[in-house]
Protein backbone atom coordinates (compact mmCIF):
# COMPACT_ATOMS: atom_id res chain seq x y z
CA UNK A 1 0.00 0.00 0.00
CA UNK A 2 1.29 3.40 -0.80
CA UNK A 3 0.01 6.68 0.49
CA UNK A 4 -0.97 9.51 -1.77
CA UNK A 5 -0.53 13.16 -0.99
CA UNK A 6 -3.95 14.82 -1.16
CA UNK A 7 -4.19 17.56 -3.72
CA UNK A 8 -1.25 16.32 -5.77
CA UNK A 9 -1.45 14.25 -8.93
CA UNK A 10 -1.15 10.48 -8.70
CA UNK A 11 2.17 10.32 -6.93
CA UNK A 12 3.29 7.90 -4.31
CA UNK A 13 4.78 9.38 -1.18
CA UNK A 14 5.83 6.77 1.36
CA UNK A 15 5.83 3.04 0.89
CA UNK A 16 4.33 2.27 4.23
CA UNK A 17 2.59 -1.01 4.92
CA UNK A 18 -0.92 -0.54 6.15
CA UNK A 19 -1.30 -2.20 9.53
CA UNK A 20 -3.78 -5.00 9.73
CA UNK A 21 -5.82 -5.81 12.81
CA UNK A 22 -3.34 -8.56 13.67
CA UNK A 23 -0.53 -6.02 13.74
CA UNK A 24 -2.61 -3.57 15.72
CA UNK A 25 -3.32 -5.90 18.62
CA UNK A 26 0.45 -6.28 18.81
CA UNK A 27 0.28 -9.67 20.43
CA UNK A 28 1.00 -11.83 17.40
CA UNK A 29 3.84 -9.60 16.31
CA UNK A 30 5.42 -9.81 19.77
CA UNK A 31 5.20 -13.58 19.65
CA UNK A 32 6.76 -13.62 16.21
CA UNK A 33 9.61 -11.38 17.34
CA UNK A 34 10.30 -13.46 20.40
CA UNK A 35 10.22 -16.64 18.34
CA UNK A 36 12.88 -15.23 16.01
CA UNK A 37 15.19 -14.26 18.85
CA UNK A 38 14.52 -17.57 20.59
CA UNK A 39 15.52 -19.39 17.42
CA UNK A 40 18.81 -17.51 17.40
CA UNK A 41 19.29 -18.18 21.10
CA UNK A 42 18.84 -21.93 20.82
CA UNK A 43 20.92 -22.18 17.67
CA UNK A 44 23.82 -20.45 19.39
CA UNK A 45 23.29 -22.48 22.57
CA UNK A 46 23.41 -25.71 20.58
CA UNK A 47 26.67 -24.62 19.00
CA UNK A 48 28.06 -23.60 22.34
CA UNK A 49 27.08 -26.85 24.05
CA UNK A 50 28.91 -28.81 21.33
CA UNK A 51 32.05 -26.70 21.94
CA UNK A 52 31.73 -24.68 18.79
CA UNK A 53 31.66 -20.92 18.77
CA UNK A 54 28.15 -19.54 18.91
CA UNK A 55 27.53 -16.17 17.34
CA UNK A 56 29.34 -14.45 14.56
CA UNK A 57 31.86 -12.41 16.50
CA UNK A 58 35.64 -12.70 16.27
CA UNK A 59 37.48 -13.03 19.55
CA UNK A 60 39.98 -10.42 18.51
CA UNK A 61 43.39 -10.96 20.04
CA UNK A 62 43.15 -14.72 19.67
CA UNK A 63 41.45 -14.75 16.32
CA UNK A 64 41.99 -12.64 13.24
CA UNK A 65 39.65 -12.06 10.35
CA UNK A 66 40.88 -14.14 7.43
CA UNK A 67 39.12 -11.97 4.88
CA UNK A 68 41.08 -8.71 4.99
CA UNK A 69 41.35 -7.33 1.49
CA UNK A 70 44.84 -7.39 0.06
CA UNK A 71 44.42 -3.70 -0.69
CA UNK A 72 43.42 -2.82 2.85
CA UNK A 73 45.51 -0.08 4.40
CA UNK A 74 46.63 -1.41 7.76
CA UNK A 75 49.85 -1.17 9.74
CA UNK A 76 52.83 0.68 8.33
CA UNK A 77 55.88 -1.29 7.29
CA UNK A 78 59.36 0.00 6.50
CA UNK A 79 60.83 -2.14 3.76
CA UNK A 80 64.38 -3.43 4.31
CA UNK A 81 67.26 -4.01 2.02
CA UNK A 82 68.83 -7.44 1.90
CA UNK A 83 71.35 -6.38 4.55
CA UNK A 84 68.57 -5.40 6.94
CA UNK A 85 68.95 -1.62 6.70
CA UNK A 86 65.86 0.44 5.84
CA UNK A 87 65.30 1.12 2.20
CA UNK A 88 64.17 4.64 3.03
CA UNK A 89 66.44 7.42 1.75
CA UNK A 90 65.03 10.04 4.16
CA UNK A 91 63.71 12.26 1.38
CA UNK A 92 60.81 13.29 3.68
CA UNK A 93 58.30 13.16 0.85
CA UNK A 94 56.00 11.02 2.95
CA UNK A 95 56.21 13.38 5.93
CA UNK A 96 55.47 16.34 3.65
CA UNK A 97 52.55 14.58 2.08
CA UNK A 98 51.06 13.26 5.27
CA UNK A 99 47.79 15.12 5.91
CA UNK A 100 47.85 14.22 9.61
CA UNK A 101 51.46 15.34 9.98
CA UNK A 102 52.26 12.31 12.03
CA UNK A 103 55.54 11.20 10.46
CA UNK A 104 58.75 12.41 12.09
CA UNK A 105 62.00 11.84 10.19
CA UNK A 106 65.49 12.85 11.20
CA UNK A 107 68.01 12.20 8.44
CA UNK A 108 71.70 11.33 8.78
CA UNK A 109 74.49 10.60 6.33
CA UNK A 110 74.65 7.08 5.06
CA UNK A 111 77.80 4.93 5.18
CA UNK A 112 77.13 3.71 1.67
CA UNK A 113 78.62 6.15 -0.84
CA UNK A 114 75.89 5.32 -3.36
CA UNK A 115 73.19 6.39 -0.96
CA UNK A 116 73.14 9.94 0.26
CA UNK A 117 70.96 9.80 3.38
CA UNK A 118 69.28 7.36 5.67
CA UNK A 119 66.75 7.93 8.47
CA UNK A 120 68.17 8.24 11.97
CA UNK A 121 64.73 8.54 13.48
CA UNK A 122 61.61 7.39 11.70
CA UNK A 123 58.49 7.64 13.80
CA UNK A 124 54.83 7.38 12.93
CA UNK A 125 52.27 8.44 15.52
CA UNK A 126 49.67 5.84 14.70
CA UNK A 127 47.12 7.42 17.01
CA UNK A 128 47.09 10.48 14.73
CA UNK A 129 47.41 8.61 11.45
CA UNK A 130 44.24 8.50 9.38
CA UNK A 131 45.40 5.54 7.27
CA UNK A 132 45.02 7.42 4.02
CA UNK A 133 47.99 5.73 2.41
CA UNK A 134 49.41 8.97 0.99
CA UNK A 135 52.81 8.19 2.47
CA UNK A 136 52.93 4.95 0.52
CA UNK A 137 51.93 6.75 -2.65
CA UNK A 138 54.47 9.52 -2.15
CA UNK A 139 57.52 7.37 -1.52
CA UNK A 140 59.84 7.39 -4.57
CA UNK A 141 61.70 4.22 -3.62
CA UNK A 142 58.84 2.05 -2.34
CA UNK A 143 60.32 2.11 1.14
CA UNK A 144 57.07 2.38 3.08
CA UNK A 145 54.16 0.06 2.67
CA UNK A 146 51.03 -0.81 4.57
CA UNK A 147 50.20 -4.34 5.62
CA UNK A 148 46.63 -5.41 4.96
CA UNK A 149 45.99 -6.26 8.62
CA UNK A 150 45.77 -4.01 11.64
CA UNK A 151 47.08 -6.53 14.13
CA UNK A 152 48.30 -5.26 17.49
CA UNK A 153 47.38 -1.73 16.52
CA UNK A 154 46.36 -0.95 20.06
CA UNK A 155 48.06 0.47 23.11
CA UNK A 156 47.36 1.31 26.70
CA UNK A 157 48.56 4.91 26.38
CA UNK A 158 49.16 7.35 23.58
CA UNK A 159 52.95 7.22 23.80
CA UNK A 160 52.91 3.53 22.96
CA UNK A 161 51.13 4.46 19.77
CA UNK A 162 54.22 6.24 18.43
CA UNK A 163 55.90 3.54 16.37
CA UNK A 164 59.66 3.94 15.99
CA UNK A 165 61.94 2.65 13.27
CA UNK A 166 62.49 -0.71 14.93
CA UNK A 167 58.79 -1.41 15.31
CA UNK A 168 58.08 -0.37 11.75
CA UNK A 169 60.78 -2.68 10.37
CA UNK A 170 59.67 -5.89 12.05
CA UNK A 171 57.89 -7.16 8.97
CA UNK A 172 60.40 -8.22 6.34
CA UNK A 173 59.12 -8.42 2.78
CA UNK A 174 61.58 -9.44 0.11
CA UNK A 175 62.89 -6.41 -1.67
CA UNK A 176 63.22 -7.35 -5.28
CA UNK A 177 60.20 -9.54 -5.72
CA UNK A 178 57.41 -9.01 -8.19
CA UNK A 179 54.66 -9.63 -5.68
CA UNK A 180 53.35 -6.51 -4.06
CA UNK A 181 52.83 -6.95 -0.36
CA UNK A 182 50.15 -4.84 1.19
CA UNK A 183 48.82 -1.55 -0.07
CA UNK A 184 50.71 -0.40 -3.11
CA UNK A 185 48.88 1.91 -5.45
Amino acid at each position, binding site marked *: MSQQIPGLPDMTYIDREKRTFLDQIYFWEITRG*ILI*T*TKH*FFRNMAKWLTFR*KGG*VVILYPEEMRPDYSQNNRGRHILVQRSDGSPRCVACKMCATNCPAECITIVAEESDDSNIQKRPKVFEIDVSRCIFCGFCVEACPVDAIRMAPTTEELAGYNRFRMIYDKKTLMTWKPTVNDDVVHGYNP
Partner: protein
Amino acid sequence: MESTFFGINTVTFITNLVIAGGIFGFMFTMGAVMSWSERKQSAQLQDRIGANRAGIPLPGGKSLKVWGFINNIADAIKCLVKEDFKPRAYDLFMYNLAIFFAFIPAVISVAVIPFAGEVHLAELFQSWYLKWIPGLPEYFATNLPNYVFRVQVANLNVGLLFVFAVGSISVFGAILAGWSSNNKFSMMGALRACSQMISYEVAMGLALLGIIFIYQTVDVWSLVQGQRELAFGWLPKWGIVLQPFAFFLFIASAVAENKRMPFDLPEAESEIISGYYTEYSAFKMLMFMFAEFIEICFVAIMITTLFFGGYSVPYLMADGFHWPWGAFTAVSHGNVVLLELGSFLTKVFFFCFLLQQARWSLPRFRYDQLMRLGWKYLLPLALLNLVVTVIIVALGGF
Protein backbone atom coordinates in the same frame (compact mmCIF):
# COMPACT_ATOMS: atom_id res chain seq x y z
CA MET B 1 8.35 -29.23 78.49
CA GLU B 2 8.82 -27.79 75.03
CA SER B 3 11.96 -25.79 74.60
CA THR B 4 11.33 -22.20 73.65
CA PHE B 5 13.39 -19.42 72.20
CA PHE B 6 12.19 -15.91 73.08
CA GLY B 7 8.78 -17.39 73.68
CA ILE B 8 8.65 -19.16 70.33
CA ASN B 9 8.82 -22.89 69.98
CA THR B 10 12.43 -23.71 69.09
CA VAL B 11 11.60 -26.02 66.20
CA THR B 12 9.20 -23.48 64.73
CA PHE B 13 11.84 -20.82 65.14
CA ILE B 14 14.53 -22.84 63.42
CA THR B 15 12.36 -24.05 60.55
CA ASN B 16 11.08 -20.53 59.94
CA LEU B 17 14.61 -19.20 60.05
CA VAL B 18 15.78 -21.79 57.53
CA ILE B 19 12.84 -21.14 55.22
CA ALA B 20 13.15 -17.35 55.41
CA GLY B 21 16.90 -17.55 54.90
CA GLY B 22 16.48 -19.93 52.01
CA ILE B 23 13.80 -17.93 50.24
CA PHE B 24 15.41 -14.51 50.66
CA GLY B 25 18.76 -16.05 49.81
CA PHE B 26 17.16 -17.43 46.69
CA MET B 27 15.95 -13.94 45.73
CA PHE B 28 19.39 -12.39 46.18
CA THR B 29 21.01 -15.21 44.25
CA MET B 30 18.47 -14.72 41.51
CA GLY B 31 19.40 -11.04 41.39
CA ALA B 32 22.99 -12.01 40.65
CA VAL B 33 22.04 -14.83 38.31
CA MET B 34 19.66 -12.61 36.38
CA SER B 35 22.26 -9.92 35.85
CA TRP B 36 24.57 -12.62 34.52
CA SER B 37 21.94 -14.31 32.37
CA GLU B 38 20.83 -10.97 31.01
CA ARG B 39 24.29 -10.47 29.58
CA LYS B 40 24.84 -13.97 28.34
CA GLN B 41 21.33 -14.56 27.08
CA SER B 42 21.15 -11.26 25.25
CA ALA B 43 24.53 -12.05 23.73
CA GLN B 44 23.41 -15.46 22.56
CA LEU B 45 20.23 -14.21 20.99
CA GLN B 46 22.04 -11.40 19.22
CA ASP B 47 24.67 -13.81 17.85
CA ARG B 48 27.32 -12.48 20.19
CA ILE B 49 29.45 -14.19 22.84
CA GLY B 50 28.86 -12.00 25.88
CA ALA B 51 31.01 -11.34 28.89
CA ASN B 52 33.86 -13.83 28.87
CA ARG B 53 37.08 -12.01 29.75
CA ALA B 54 37.20 -11.55 33.51
CA GLY B 55 38.58 -14.56 35.32
CA ILE B 56 40.33 -15.67 38.46
CA PRO B 57 43.85 -16.76 37.52
CA LEU B 58 44.60 -20.36 38.34
CA PRO B 59 48.04 -21.98 38.60
CA GLY B 60 49.06 -23.28 35.22
CA GLY B 61 48.18 -20.21 33.19
CA LYS B 62 44.48 -20.93 32.97
CA SER B 63 41.82 -18.76 34.52
CA LEU B 64 38.49 -19.59 36.09
CA LYS B 65 35.80 -17.79 34.14
CA VAL B 66 32.57 -19.75 34.83
CA TRP B 67 31.05 -18.62 31.52
CA GLY B 68 31.34 -14.95 32.32
CA PHE B 69 29.99 -15.16 35.85
CA ILE B 70 33.24 -13.75 37.25
CA ASN B 71 32.44 -10.55 35.36
CA ASN B 72 29.62 -9.99 37.85
CA ILE B 73 31.99 -10.30 40.77
CA ALA B 74 34.40 -7.95 39.04
CA ASP B 75 31.56 -5.49 38.56
CA ALA B 76 30.60 -5.69 42.21
CA ILE B 77 34.20 -5.08 43.29
CA LYS B 78 34.48 -2.22 40.85
CA CYS B 79 31.31 -0.62 42.17
CA LEU B 80 32.49 -1.03 45.75
CA VAL B 81 35.83 0.67 45.23
CA LYS B 82 34.60 3.32 42.83
CA GLU B 83 34.25 6.92 43.85
CA ASP B 84 30.83 7.55 45.32
CA PHE B 85 29.97 10.48 43.13
CA LYS B 86 27.13 12.64 44.39
CA PRO B 87 25.38 15.63 42.86
CA ARG B 88 26.38 18.91 44.45
CA ALA B 89 22.98 20.11 45.58
CA TYR B 90 20.77 17.32 46.71
CA ASP B 91 18.68 16.17 49.62
CA LEU B 92 21.06 13.82 51.36
CA PHE B 93 18.53 11.99 53.48
CA MET B 94 16.00 11.36 50.73
CA TYR B 95 18.75 10.59 48.24
CA ASN B 96 19.94 7.71 50.38
CA LEU B 97 16.48 6.66 51.49
CA ALA B 98 15.32 6.21 47.90
CA ILE B 99 17.63 3.23 47.42
CA PHE B 100 15.96 1.36 50.23
CA PHE B 101 12.51 2.27 48.99
CA ALA B 102 13.44 0.73 45.67
CA PHE B 103 15.26 -2.27 47.06
CA ILE B 104 13.32 -3.53 50.07
CA PRO B 105 9.84 -3.79 48.48
CA ALA B 106 11.37 -5.78 45.66
CA VAL B 107 12.66 -8.34 48.13
CA ILE B 108 9.97 -8.62 50.78
CA SER B 109 6.92 -9.28 48.63
CA VAL B 110 8.17 -12.81 48.09
CA ALA B 111 7.38 -13.54 51.74
CA VAL B 112 3.81 -14.62 51.00
CA ILE B 113 4.69 -16.96 48.13
CA PRO B 114 4.68 -20.70 48.94
CA PHE B 115 7.70 -22.41 47.41
CA ALA B 116 6.48 -25.94 48.17
CA GLY B 117 3.53 -27.63 49.86
CA GLU B 118 3.15 -28.72 53.44
CA VAL B 119 6.20 -30.50 54.77
CA HIS B 120 5.96 -33.17 57.42
CA LEU B 121 9.16 -32.73 59.38
CA ALA B 122 9.49 -36.28 60.75
CA GLU B 123 8.78 -37.84 57.37
CA LEU B 124 11.09 -35.39 55.60
CA PHE B 125 13.96 -36.62 57.74
CA GLN B 126 13.20 -40.20 56.68
CA SER B 127 13.95 -39.29 53.05
CA TRP B 128 17.08 -40.46 51.26
CA TYR B 129 18.72 -37.04 51.26
CA LEU B 130 18.36 -36.27 54.99
CA LYS B 131 18.44 -39.79 56.47
CA TRP B 132 22.22 -39.80 56.87
CA ILE B 133 22.26 -37.00 59.48
CA PRO B 134 23.02 -38.83 62.74
CA GLY B 135 20.43 -38.53 65.50
CA LEU B 136 18.02 -36.07 63.93
CA PRO B 137 15.66 -38.51 62.11
CA GLU B 138 15.13 -40.51 65.32
CA TYR B 139 14.75 -37.35 67.38
CA PHE B 140 12.02 -35.90 65.14
CA ALA B 141 10.25 -39.25 64.77
CA THR B 142 9.92 -39.69 68.56
CA ASN B 143 9.49 -36.09 69.75
CA LEU B 144 7.65 -34.34 66.91
CA PRO B 145 5.78 -37.02 64.97
CA ASN B 146 3.05 -34.62 63.80
CA TYR B 147 4.96 -31.39 63.17
CA VAL B 148 3.98 -29.89 59.82
CA PHE B 149 5.22 -26.63 58.31
CA ARG B 150 4.76 -24.70 55.10
CA VAL B 151 7.55 -23.58 52.80
CA GLN B 152 6.38 -19.98 52.95
CA VAL B 153 7.86 -17.14 54.97
CA ALA B 154 4.64 -15.50 56.15
CA ASN B 155 1.28 -17.19 55.99
CA LEU B 156 -0.81 -14.05 55.53
CA ASN B 157 -4.46 -14.46 54.69
CA VAL B 158 -4.30 -11.18 52.73
CA GLY B 159 -1.30 -12.33 50.71
CA LEU B 160 -2.22 -10.81 47.36
CA LEU B 161 -3.16 -7.50 48.94
CA PHE B 162 0.19 -7.49 50.69
CA VAL B 163 1.94 -7.96 47.37
CA PHE B 164 0.02 -5.04 45.88
CA ALA B 165 0.60 -2.83 48.88
CA VAL B 166 4.32 -3.47 48.88
CA GLY B 167 4.48 -3.14 45.12
CA SER B 168 2.98 0.32 45.26
CA ILE B 169 5.52 1.39 47.88
CA SER B 170 8.31 0.85 45.37
CA VAL B 171 7.07 3.82 43.37
CA PHE B 172 8.35 5.96 46.24
CA GLY B 173 11.85 4.75 45.44
CA ALA B 174 11.60 6.17 41.94
CA ILE B 175 9.93 9.43 42.91
CA LEU B 176 12.27 10.10 45.84
CA ALA B 177 15.34 9.31 43.78
CA GLY B 178 14.20 11.58 41.01
CA TRP B 179 13.21 14.42 43.25
CA SER B 180 16.17 14.38 45.61
CA SER B 181 18.97 14.22 43.04
CA ASN B 182 18.33 17.77 41.82
CA ASN B 183 18.51 16.91 38.15
CA LYS B 184 15.89 17.56 35.52
CA PHE B 185 16.46 14.24 33.77
CA SER B 186 16.02 12.43 37.06
CA MET B 187 12.85 14.37 37.70
CA MET B 188 11.49 13.49 34.27
CA GLY B 189 12.30 9.85 34.86
CA ALA B 190 10.65 9.91 38.24
CA LEU B 191 7.49 11.49 36.88
CA ARG B 192 7.35 8.97 34.09
CA ALA B 193 7.92 6.10 36.49
CA CYS B 194 5.27 7.41 38.83
CA SER B 195 2.52 7.88 36.27
CA GLN B 196 3.39 4.62 34.55
CA MET B 197 3.32 2.58 37.73
CA ILE B 198 0.06 4.09 38.89
CA SER B 199 -1.60 3.53 35.52
CA TYR B 200 -0.52 -0.05 35.20
CA GLU B 201 -1.21 -0.99 38.78
CA VAL B 202 -4.90 -0.42 38.05
CA ALA B 203 -4.88 -2.77 35.07
CA MET B 204 -2.82 -5.32 36.97
CA GLY B 205 -5.15 -5.37 39.95
CA LEU B 206 -8.22 -5.66 37.76
CA ALA B 207 -6.65 -8.49 35.77
CA LEU B 208 -6.08 -10.40 38.99
CA LEU B 209 -9.59 -9.74 40.36
CA GLY B 210 -10.88 -12.48 38.07
CA ILE B 211 -8.49 -14.95 39.68
CA ILE B 212 -9.61 -13.83 43.12
CA PHE B 213 -13.24 -14.30 42.13
CA ILE B 214 -12.70 -17.80 40.83
CA TYR B 215 -10.71 -19.14 43.75
CA GLN B 216 -12.66 -17.04 46.27
CA THR B 217 -9.56 -15.99 48.21
CA VAL B 218 -6.71 -13.50 48.39
CA ASP B 219 -4.59 -15.89 50.42
CA VAL B 220 -1.79 -17.07 48.17
CA TRP B 221 -1.61 -20.46 49.87
CA SER B 222 -5.30 -21.15 49.21
CA LEU B 223 -4.93 -19.84 45.65
CA VAL B 224 -2.32 -22.50 44.97
CA GLN B 225 -4.42 -25.13 46.72
CA GLY B 226 -7.35 -24.15 44.47
CA GLN B 227 -5.15 -24.58 41.40
CA ARG B 228 -4.25 -28.11 42.39
CA GLU B 229 -7.80 -29.29 41.80
CA LEU B 230 -8.77 -30.88 38.52
CA ALA B 231 -11.47 -29.81 36.11
CA PHE B 232 -13.27 -32.64 34.24
CA GLY B 233 -11.09 -35.04 36.18
CA TRP B 234 -7.98 -34.42 34.06
CA LEU B 235 -7.34 -30.71 33.45
CA PRO B 236 -5.46 -28.95 36.28
CA LYS B 237 -7.39 -25.83 37.33
CA TRP B 238 -4.42 -23.57 36.74
CA GLY B 239 -5.01 -19.87 36.36
CA ILE B 240 -3.92 -19.98 32.73
CA VAL B 241 -6.69 -22.50 31.99
CA LEU B 242 -9.45 -20.58 33.74
CA GLN B 243 -8.21 -17.06 33.01
CA PRO B 244 -6.12 -17.16 29.83
CA PHE B 245 -6.96 -13.58 28.99
CA ALA B 246 -6.00 -12.27 32.40
CA PHE B 247 -2.63 -13.96 31.98
CA PHE B 248 -1.66 -11.76 29.04
CA LEU B 249 -3.06 -8.65 30.68
CA PHE B 250 -1.10 -9.48 33.81
CA ILE B 251 2.19 -10.07 31.98
CA ALA B 252 1.84 -6.81 30.05
CA SER B 253 0.97 -4.73 33.09
CA ALA B 254 3.48 -6.45 35.38
CA VAL B 255 6.30 -5.79 32.94
CA ALA B 256 5.17 -2.19 32.63
CA GLU B 257 4.91 -1.90 36.40
CA ASN B 258 8.51 -3.10 36.65
CA LYS B 259 9.65 -0.63 34.01
CA ARG B 260 11.16 -3.34 31.85
CA MET B 261 12.06 -3.15 28.24
CA PRO B 262 9.09 -2.49 26.01
CA PHE B 263 7.94 -0.10 28.74
CA ASP B 264 11.24 1.17 30.17
CA LEU B 265 10.39 4.80 29.57
CA PRO B 266 11.58 5.92 33.03
CA GLU B 267 15.08 4.79 32.12
CA ALA B 268 14.97 5.51 28.42
CA GLU B 269 18.67 6.20 27.97
CA SER B 270 18.28 7.79 24.56
CA GLU B 271 15.93 10.39 25.98
CA ILE B 272 16.66 11.00 29.65
CA ILE B 273 20.09 9.42 30.29
CA SER B 274 19.27 6.92 32.99
CA GLY B 275 16.03 8.29 34.33
CA TYR B 276 15.56 8.60 38.03
CA TYR B 277 18.89 7.05 38.93
CA THR B 278 21.01 9.23 36.67
CA GLU B 279 22.72 10.82 39.66
CA TYR B 280 23.49 7.60 41.47
CA SER B 281 26.87 6.04 41.03
CA ALA B 282 28.91 3.08 42.16
CA PHE B 283 27.14 0.74 44.54
CA LYS B 284 24.00 2.83 44.82
CA MET B 285 23.39 2.47 41.13
CA LEU B 286 24.10 -1.25 41.47
CA MET B 287 21.41 -1.47 44.16
CA PHE B 288 18.85 -0.03 41.74
CA MET B 289 19.89 -2.51 39.07
CA PHE B 290 19.80 -5.34 41.57
CA ALA B 291 16.31 -4.36 42.71
CA GLU B 292 15.18 -4.38 39.12
CA PHE B 293 16.51 -7.87 38.52
CA ILE B 294 14.91 -9.14 41.70
CA GLU B 295 11.63 -7.61 40.57
CA ILE B 296 11.85 -9.50 37.29
CA CYS B 297 12.33 -12.68 39.23
CA PHE B 298 9.36 -11.75 41.39
CA VAL B 299 7.17 -11.19 38.36
CA ALA B 300 8.14 -14.67 37.20
CA ILE B 301 7.24 -15.99 40.65
CA MET B 302 3.87 -14.22 40.56
CA ILE B 303 3.07 -15.58 37.11
CA THR B 304 3.99 -19.05 38.30
CA THR B 305 1.96 -18.80 41.47
CA LEU B 306 -1.14 -17.21 40.04
CA PHE B 307 -1.39 -18.75 36.59
CA PHE B 308 0.71 -21.89 36.53
CA GLY B 309 -0.24 -23.61 39.74
CA GLY B 310 2.65 -22.44 41.87
CA TYR B 311 4.58 -25.38 43.19
CA SER B 312 1.93 -27.91 42.15
CA VAL B 313 2.82 -30.72 39.82
CA PRO B 314 -0.22 -31.95 37.84
CA TYR B 315 -1.84 -35.02 39.46
CA LEU B 316 0.70 -35.08 42.30
CA MET B 317 -1.03 -35.33 45.67
CA ALA B 318 0.57 -35.72 49.09
CA ASP B 319 1.11 -39.46 48.63
CA GLY B 320 1.90 -39.77 44.94
CA PHE B 321 0.58 -39.34 41.41
CA HIS B 322 -3.16 -39.94 40.95
CA TRP B 323 -3.24 -40.26 37.17
CA PRO B 324 -6.48 -39.26 35.43
CA TRP B 325 -6.91 -42.77 34.00
CA GLY B 326 -7.13 -44.19 37.50
CA ALA B 327 -3.60 -45.45 37.95
CA PHE B 328 -1.60 -44.51 41.02
CA THR B 329 2.15 -44.11 41.48
CA ALA B 330 3.33 -43.84 45.06
CA VAL B 331 6.00 -41.21 45.77
CA SER B 332 7.69 -40.89 49.14
CA HIS B 333 7.20 -37.66 51.07
CA GLY B 334 10.81 -36.55 50.64
CA ASN B 335 10.49 -36.91 46.89
CA VAL B 336 7.15 -35.09 46.82
CA VAL B 337 8.79 -32.09 48.49
CA LEU B 338 11.67 -32.22 46.02
CA LEU B 339 9.27 -32.50 43.07
CA GLU B 340 7.21 -29.55 44.24
CA LEU B 341 10.24 -27.39 44.86
CA GLY B 342 11.68 -28.46 41.50
CA SER B 343 8.46 -27.75 39.66
CA PHE B 344 8.23 -24.29 41.22
CA LEU B 345 11.81 -23.40 40.37
CA THR B 346 11.51 -24.78 36.84
CA LYS B 347 8.46 -22.64 36.17
CA VAL B 348 10.14 -19.58 37.68
CA PHE B 349 13.28 -20.06 35.62
CA PHE B 350 11.22 -20.53 32.49
CA PHE B 351 9.36 -17.26 33.03
CA CYS B 352 12.56 -15.44 33.91
CA PHE B 353 13.89 -16.67 30.58
CA LEU B 354 10.75 -15.58 28.77
CA LEU B 355 10.78 -12.10 30.31
CA GLN B 356 14.44 -11.63 29.44
CA GLN B 357 13.73 -12.83 25.92
CA ALA B 358 10.90 -10.32 25.58
CA ARG B 359 13.12 -7.58 26.95
CA TRP B 360 15.76 -8.14 24.29
CA SER B 361 13.35 -8.65 21.41
CA LEU B 362 10.99 -5.71 21.60
CA PRO B 363 11.50 -2.04 20.85
CA ARG B 364 10.51 0.63 23.31
CA PHE B 365 7.09 2.28 23.25
CA ARG B 366 6.61 5.98 22.92
CA TYR B 367 5.26 7.57 26.08
CA ASP B 368 1.87 8.45 24.64
CA GLN B 369 1.58 4.92 23.24
CA LEU B 370 2.38 3.57 26.67
CA MET B 371 -0.33 5.63 28.34
CA ARG B 372 -2.81 4.80 25.62
CA LEU B 373 -2.09 1.10 25.95
CA GLY B 374 -2.54 1.22 29.70
CA TRP B 375 -5.69 3.29 29.97
CA LYS B 376 -7.48 2.70 26.69
CA TYR B 377 -6.76 -0.96 26.07
CA LEU B 378 -5.51 -2.88 29.10
CA LEU B 379 -7.91 -1.29 31.59
CA PRO B 380 -11.13 -1.81 29.55
CA LEU B 381 -10.01 -5.32 28.62
CA ALA B 382 -9.31 -6.14 32.25
CA LEU B 383 -12.75 -4.80 33.18
CA LEU B 384 -14.36 -6.85 30.42
CA ASN B 385 -12.51 -9.92 31.59
CA LEU B 386 -13.71 -9.26 35.11
CA VAL B 387 -17.34 -8.83 34.04
CA VAL B 388 -17.33 -12.03 32.01
CA THR B 389 -15.70 -13.91 34.87
CA VAL B 390 -18.21 -12.60 37.37
CA ILE B 391 -21.13 -13.60 35.14
CA ILE B 392 -19.73 -17.10 34.67
CA VAL B 393 -19.06 -17.45 38.39
CA ALA B 394 -22.57 -16.21 39.19
CA LEU B 395 -24.07 -18.69 36.74
CA GLY B 396 -22.28 -21.43 38.61
CA GLY B 397 -19.37 -22.07 36.25
CA PHE B 398 -15.97 -23.17 37.51
